[in-house]
Each structure stands twice: as C-alpha cells, then as structure tokens.
C-alpha cells in the first residue's frame, strides 16, 4: 500500500469485478438492514418475516460465497481487504454456522419467551463481522471487524435478560473481551509506530527489508497482537472467561460462538500470521519466538482443556472445556503449519470439522434443554437412547467425532493435523496431543454411558423437534460421516483456500 497523498479517483469507484467479489458482504449487510426494518413492523408479527429474511440472507450468502471460492484473489479498498478463496471458504463456514444456529434457535426462542427479532439481526451483524475478519489485510479493518463481531455477540450472550447467569456471562465477556481488544489495538499501535503502516503485508515487508526495524518494541507489538488473538480463541492461559460465558449464554448462542467465533478468530489468525512472521523468509527472531509461544500455549491449552473437562457434569460446561482442548489441537496446526506439506490447510480443515461436529452437538443440546437451559446435566441424559434414539445417535456421532474416533470428520481432521505435525518434526508435541485426546475420550464416552447404559429416569417427556432443527441436525450428522469417510474433497478445498491467499 502506498500512502495516500491526494484523493485518487480510481479508489472511489469500484470495478465490476470488485463489486462481484463483494457480493457476499452486500448480501449479508442488506439482509441485516432489511431484517432490522422488518423487526419494527408493528402490525405484523415480526417473528416469521425476520426469520425468513435471515435464513434467506444466510443461504443466499452461502450460495454466493461458494461460487466465489474458485476465484483468484482480488484486493479491495487500496489493499485493506482481500477477497480470495480463503475468505470465501471461511465465509461459507460462518454463514452455514449462522444459518444452522438460526434454524435451531427458532423453537428455543419461542419456548424461552425470547422470540425477539433482534436475535436474528444480531446474528447477521456478527456474521458480517466474521466475514470481514477473515478478509482483513489491515490491522484497522481487522480491529473494526473484530469489534463488529464481538459487540453483537456480547448482546447475544446476555440475551436471556431475566437470567442472572446470562447477564453475568455477558458482563464478564464484555469486560474481558474489551480488555483483549485493547491489547490487540495497542499492539497494532506499536507496530504502526515502528513501521509507519497498518497494513499487515506492509509490516512484514518492512521487517524483512530492514532487520534493524525489529526492535524490542516491534516484538512487543507482535506479542500483544498474538495475545489479543489467543484471548479471542480462548487458548490457555487466556481461557478463563470461556467456560462461564459458554455456560451462561443461551444454548444455541453457545453453539454459534464455539463454531463461528472460533472459526473467525482462527481465520484471521491464519491470515495475519501466514503473512506476518511465520511466513517464509521472515526474521529468525520473530519466528523462533512464535514457535515457542505457540508450542507452550498449545500444550497448556490441550492439557488444561482436557483435564478440566474430565470433572464437569454439566454438558455445556464440558463442551466449553472441550472447546478449549480443540483450540489446543488447532494451535498444534499453527506451530507446524509452515513446515509441513499441507501447511495451514490441515488447520483449516480442522476448523471446518470442528464447526460441523460442534454445531451438531449444540443443536442437539438445544433440543434437549429444558426451561432456562436446565436439563443439561449428565444425569438428565440418562436413558436418552430409549426416550429419543435418533437424537441420542446424533449426539453420539458428534461426540465420537470430537473424540477423534473413525469414521468421522473429527478423526479425518485430526489425522491430517497430526500427520502434518509429524512431518514438521514436532513428534513430542504430537505425542502429547494424542495422549490428551485419549484423555478426552473418557469424558465424551461418559455421555454415551449415560445415554445408552443408564436406565431412563423420570417420566419420558415428549421432545418436540421442529422441522428446522431436525434438518439441521440431520445435515450435520451426514456431513460428519461424509467428511470422515471421504475427506479428500474437503482437504482439496482447504488446500486451495490456503494456497489462494
């Protein structure tokens, strides 16, 4: 990016190509505005129109984004944003995650008396934030996208206004999240001070061209950016906020957060650090620092996540810790990304697999939860296989996938991730990782024990599964097994996405 001295007219107009690659963003933004307008209709009940608009928007976005995946990179807005296969790949993931969450939430909101149109509108805005996050090439855009995403989610977390835990979670998340954003912003400021640019590529080029620019302040700036991100993905030791927030948030929102939010943070993480520091030819110091920081973080995250999850009896909390553990596995992909053949494609694939199985699991939990998100303790699932065999089967598939048992998506993704780590020579890290995943099997299987091996307790309540939720769960089961059995296609798409960046 060259500094702007005068306003150049070509920057104010957009070529047709640019408009075309921006379509997913326009669609979601337009949809969000229309949904917002729809929600203020007084005479008509806004419930159905907003729901339909939201779903239509999200699926239109998915359709447009998938169409754009094979296309080459287009730089937008004077190099502040890129639309490439990587961003479109992730846009598809975000939009699908949002669509499924919306589908699953429909009856949940009815039941909880929370059927407010704002819910869907906020989801649309946070998705827009995620999409911008995955395509940001400039720290300023990155920050704005992050805030757009986070602010919407802060509200969603506190959506059960009458519930104290929900409020507590929202407050905690808001304060800690803001602090992390501040750290990230401060790191950006330091980088800007050292290099005179906020463009990610600009920072890297300067660091490569002038080794003298890599001052302690520069390293500090990079570190702060890293820590800001580690907070967002809830890697240990920055994970403390996560279990409380996940437990307090409404169930479908938790599902949305664990998938969409995490995928978005990792997408940005990948983009920033493939460009910065970890990329080939980057400075030695930064690279070595990164390696050590991520190595320690990965191990800590896996160990803490898995071992603490062992003792949880509430499913939501257990999945929150398991989510931390999965962040750890993803960080393994991060440590080794640059030195293996598949590169970051393995990590990208893992993000997708995790999104699929986790969305599915939370969809089932949403259906199972009682009033005020009760009924999600382990013993509430006793004998679920008798009461609702299909839901029990679906949940088993998702949990076995998270545990990495073949033939599921989780296994295929883990296989790729760990085998690329072995290629990179990080054998000790992989051994720690597989032992941690052996630990994880215990708590995932414990759910199966309750569902299949305990006698049903209480009166068999009749679960009403809406068509929307049913379709969502079925789709996730099929995807989990399909990616597990024939991972090739997904791997190729992920590879293309990473290379096309």
């Amino acid at each position, binding site marked *: 990016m060259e500094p702007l001295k005068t306003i150049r007219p070509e920057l104010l107009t957009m070529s047709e190509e640019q408009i075309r690659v921006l379509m997913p963003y326009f669609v979601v933004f337009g949809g969000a505005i229309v949904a917002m307008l729809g929600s203020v209709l007084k005479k008509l009940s806004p419930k159905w129109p907003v729901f339909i608009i939201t779903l239509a928007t999200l699926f239109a976005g998915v359709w447009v984004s998938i169409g754009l995946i094979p296309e080459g990179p287009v730089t937008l807005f004077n190099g502040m944003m890129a639309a490439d296969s990587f961003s479109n790949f992730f846009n598809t993931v975000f939009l699908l995650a949002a669509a499924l969450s919306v589908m699953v939430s429909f009856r949940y909101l009815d039941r909880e008396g929370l059927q407010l149109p704002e819910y869907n509108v906020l989801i649309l805005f946070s998705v827009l934030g995620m999409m911008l996050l995955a395509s940001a090439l400039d720290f300023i855009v990155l920050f704005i996208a992050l805030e757009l995403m986070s602010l919407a989610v802060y509200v969603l977390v506190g959506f059960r206004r009458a519930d104290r835990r929900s409020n507590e979670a929202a407050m905690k998340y808001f304060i800690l999240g803001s602090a992390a954003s501040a750290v990230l912003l401060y790191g950006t400021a330091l980088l800007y001070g050292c290099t005179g640019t906020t463009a990610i590529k600009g920072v890297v080029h300067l660091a490569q061209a002038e080794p003298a620019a890599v001052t302690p302040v520069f390293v500090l700036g990079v570190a702060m950016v890293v820590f800001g991100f580690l907070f967002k993905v809830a890697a240990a030791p920055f994970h403390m906020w996560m279990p409380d927030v996940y437990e307090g948030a409404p169930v479908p929102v938790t599902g949305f957060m664990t998938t969409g939010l995490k995928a978005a943070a990792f997408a940005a993480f990948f983009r920033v650090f493939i460009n910065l520091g970890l990329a080939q030819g980057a400075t030695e110091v930064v690279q070595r620092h990164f390696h050590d920081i991520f190595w320690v973080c990965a191990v800590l995250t896996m160990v803490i996540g898995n071992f603490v999850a062992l003792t949880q009896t509430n499913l939501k909390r257990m999945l929150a810790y398991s989510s931390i553990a999965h962040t750890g596995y993803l960080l393994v992909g991060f440590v080794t990304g640059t030195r293996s*053949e*598949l590169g970051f494609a393995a990590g990208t694939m893992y993000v997708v697999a995790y999104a699929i199985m986790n969305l599915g699991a939370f969809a089932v939990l949403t259906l199972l939860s009682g009033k005020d998100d009760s009924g999600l303790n382990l013993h509430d699932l006793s004998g679920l*296989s008798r009461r609702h065999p299909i839901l029990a089967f679906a949940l088993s598939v998702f949990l*076995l996938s998270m545990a990495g*048992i*073949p*033939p599921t998506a989780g*296994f*295929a993704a883990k*296989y*790729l991730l*760990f*085998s690329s*780590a*072995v*290629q990179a020579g990080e*054998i000790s890290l*992989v*051994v720690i990782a*597989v*032992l941690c*995943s*052996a630990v994880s*099997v*215990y708590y995932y*299987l*414990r759910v*199966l*024990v309750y569902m*299949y*091996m305990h006698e049903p307790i209480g009166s068999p309540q009749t679960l009403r599964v809406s068509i929307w939720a049913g379709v969502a769960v079925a789709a996730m089961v099929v995807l989990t097994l399909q990616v597990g059995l*024939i*991972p*090739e296609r997904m*791997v*190729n798409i992920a*590879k293309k996405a990473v290379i096309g960046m």
Partner: protein
Amino acid sequence: MAGIDTHFLSWIVFLPLLFAFAGLLIPAKGTAGQTAMRLWTLLGSLITFGVSVSLYINYRPEGADFQFTETVPWISTLGASYALGVDGISLWLILLTTFLMPLAILGSFSAIENRVKEYYFLLLALETAMLGAFVSLDIFLFYVFWEAMLIPMYLLIGIWGGKERIYAAMKFFLYTLVGSLLMLVAIFYLAHQHKLQMGAYSTNILDLYKLQLEGGTFWSAQSILFLAFALAFAIKVPLFPLHTWLPDAHVQAPTAGSVILAAVLLKMGGYGFMRIGFPIFPESVAYFQLTFMILGTIAIVYGAWVAMVQPDIKKLVAYSSVSHMGYVIIGLFSLNEIGVTGSYYQMLNHGISTGALFLLVGVIYERRHTRDISAFGGISKVMPMFAIVFMIITLSSVALPGTNGFVGEFLILLGAWKVNPGLTAVATTGVIFGAVYMLWMFQRVMFGPVTNPENQKLKDLSLREWTVLAPLVAAVFVMGIYPNLFFEKLEPSIQRFIMKSTTNRTAPPQSLFSDNSK
C-alpha cells in the same frame, strides 16, 4: 450382484453391515419382531460365512502373495488407499470370524431380551470392522477398522453386560485407545518416512515393507516405532503386564461379546504383529526378541496361577486366555517356521476352544444366573450331554493330544526351544498348570454329589444349544487330527512372513516338515 468378482473382499467385509442396516427396517416390537430380528441376523452371518468359504476354496497357496486384491485411491494427499487383499495369514482368521459369528448370534438368542434390535445391529457392525481389519493392506484403513471395532464392543459390554459393565466397558475402551493412538503417531511417521525415501506418501503396508529404517539400538527410529506398534498390539493380545482390562471385559460382557472378544479381538493383536509389527521392523524384532519372550513366558505362568484361584468360571477362562495368548507371543517371537506356525495355529485354537468355553458358561449361566464354581457340583448327573461337551472343550484347552490345542502348543514349544531352551522349560510348566486349573474347575463343577438343590432340575442342552456347540466340537477334532488341512494354505505365507521378518532377508526359509532333523 455387481462387481462380485472384482470386489470380492469388499462384499465379504460389508455384507454384515448391509444386513445390519437392512435389519433396522424390521419392526422389532413384540416377540414375533424380535424373533424376526434374530433370524435375520443369523441369516446375514451365515451368508457371510458362506461367501468366505468360497474365499477359502478359491485361495491358491501357490499363487500370488496377496490375492483378491482391490485398490482404490482414497486420500491421495496422505497416500492412503482402500487396499484389500488376502494371504494365508488373514485367510484363516477371516474364516474363524465368519465361522464363530453365527454361533455367537445363535448362542445369544435366549440370553438377550431387551433392546434386541440394537444388539444384533452392533454384532453385525462389529463383524464388518473385524473382517475389515483382517483384509486391509493399507495401514490407514487398518487403523480405521481397528478403531471402529471399539465402539460396538464398547456398547455391547456397556449395555448388555453384567453388574460392573460400565467400568469394564470404559476400561476396555481406554486401554485399547491409548495403545492405538501411539500407533497412530507411528503411522504418521512411517508415511512421512516413505515420502522421504520413496518420494511419495504411502500408507500401503506392502510399500512400507520396503522402508529402510535405522535400527539395532533402543533409541533408534525402528525400535521406537516398533514399540509404539507393539504397545497397541500387546494391549490387544493382551500381553502381561497390559492384560488387566481383559478379565473385567470378559466377565462383564454378554456371552456373545465374550466369545467375539476372546476368539477374534484378541487375535487382532497377534495378527497386527504378523502383518505390520514384524515385517516392517525386522531388526527391532530381533532386538526385543528376548524381552517379549520373557513377557510371554510370564504371561503363561502367571495367567495359569491366577486362573487357578478364581472363584468365577468366566474369570477363570479369562485368565486362561492370558496364559494361552502368552504361547502365541513366544511362538511368534521365536521367529522360526515351527514356532510361528504353532503360534498362528494356537490363535485359531484359542478362538475355538475359548469361544466354546464362554458359550458353555453362558449355557449354565442362563439356567442358574451364577457363575460361581462353588454354586455348582455334580452337574454331570443332571446335564450329562452338557458335561460331555464341556469335557471335550476342557481337554482341548488343556492341549490333550488329538485335540487342536495340542498341535499349537507342541509346535510353539518346539519352535521356542530352538531359540531359548531355558525359557521354554519354564513355559512348559504352564501346560501343567493349565491342566491343573481346568481339570480342577471341571471336577468341582461336574463331579461329586449335587449339593445345591437348585441344581437338581437343570435341563440338559436344548437343540439350539447343540447346534451352537456341535460345530465347535467338530472343529476341535478336525484341527487336532488333520492340521495339514490348515497348514496347506498357510505355509507359503508363513515362509514369506519369516523371510520378511528376519534381518537376513536372503536366507532360505526352513521348511516345516522336511528338515525336522536339524
């Protein structure tokens, strides 16, 4: 049916699964539905057996190393392919599996009364996973089947098992999983090595045989990799001191579960050593030969001693498995043709006789709902036919000449003697202790006066139970009297196995029957 010639093995592997899924459509409510479900499953397993018999007929021992091969690229990024093939080593284990499956299914007709549909679905799914593991020629595919076996078995133990079933199921799962995850890391490493040495990723087992790995010391790549695989296989076998999951799992599992577990799942360990562990890491096998032979000997003697003092018949049989599988290990690690052949034969024997023992224990348990040896006595007076069958199987387990057990144990001890006479002498005491615990148990259960009034009116074997047990009794004698039937199709594969697994790959293989004079 389409592609039955070119995809013969795929058909065998996935037939049970097809039947399992079709069985889901049967409305299994009520007695009629349950009976339909049982018969359907039996039919499925019988058809699978029939197809596998034609595999036996068409297998040519003098032909190619691996026959009926199929290869379809699967995940090209990792070099994984869907590669299947059969040699003599997998052939008999496939037949063992398909032979025992209908018997296990028929044996649980009256024992399982709740959740019938799920039960039979899982049994058939398990059969597919086991067969898949035996025919995989790709280590990734092998791993997938290996792990996929765990889930149905876990559920079988955990849902239909005894009192401590959840503990036992969890222990079974975690033990096996820890071992196999380290194996997974070793698989990654092997695939990577293949890329470095041959220029492309491959997880095809036959490609991995050609790898040159530095070995000979404890910290060499080969040793570490071998240990990673050996851990997974030794847990499955199970080898002392990794055997502690077995008594729990065996005792708690329902009868069919115990039968399959003992007869087939334990063989996975031995098979793993033969297909993967030995030929890929020949130097390490030589390096660790003594260690494993010592562990095997300990397992033989220790298993026998512990079995002697068990008050529960099923637990006694479980520990006898530990002892018998110890023979398999010393036979394999003796690395000569006699020992390895005996060891392989012992795996089949153990499948037959221990499977039969578990079925017999199931028979008596269904009548009395206890397995305590002290609750019985004088059963031979009440159930004479049962006693006769029990006697035959007991003698086969004790390795009486004329029964299958004798052939296996004799060859193993002969083979091991050539390598290490001292250890073999110790192992031989296991034969004696084996006779002690089996016969003592038999005496306490069968002979003497009928002390317990509840035992007075026990019914003898029903027609269904006869149908289950008769093929096993027949197998005991056929295998004991005419072992050549088995060796015929086995010998070339065993010779190739020895050749690949000894560091001196050029040495001509010893023949089993021509140079006994040495």
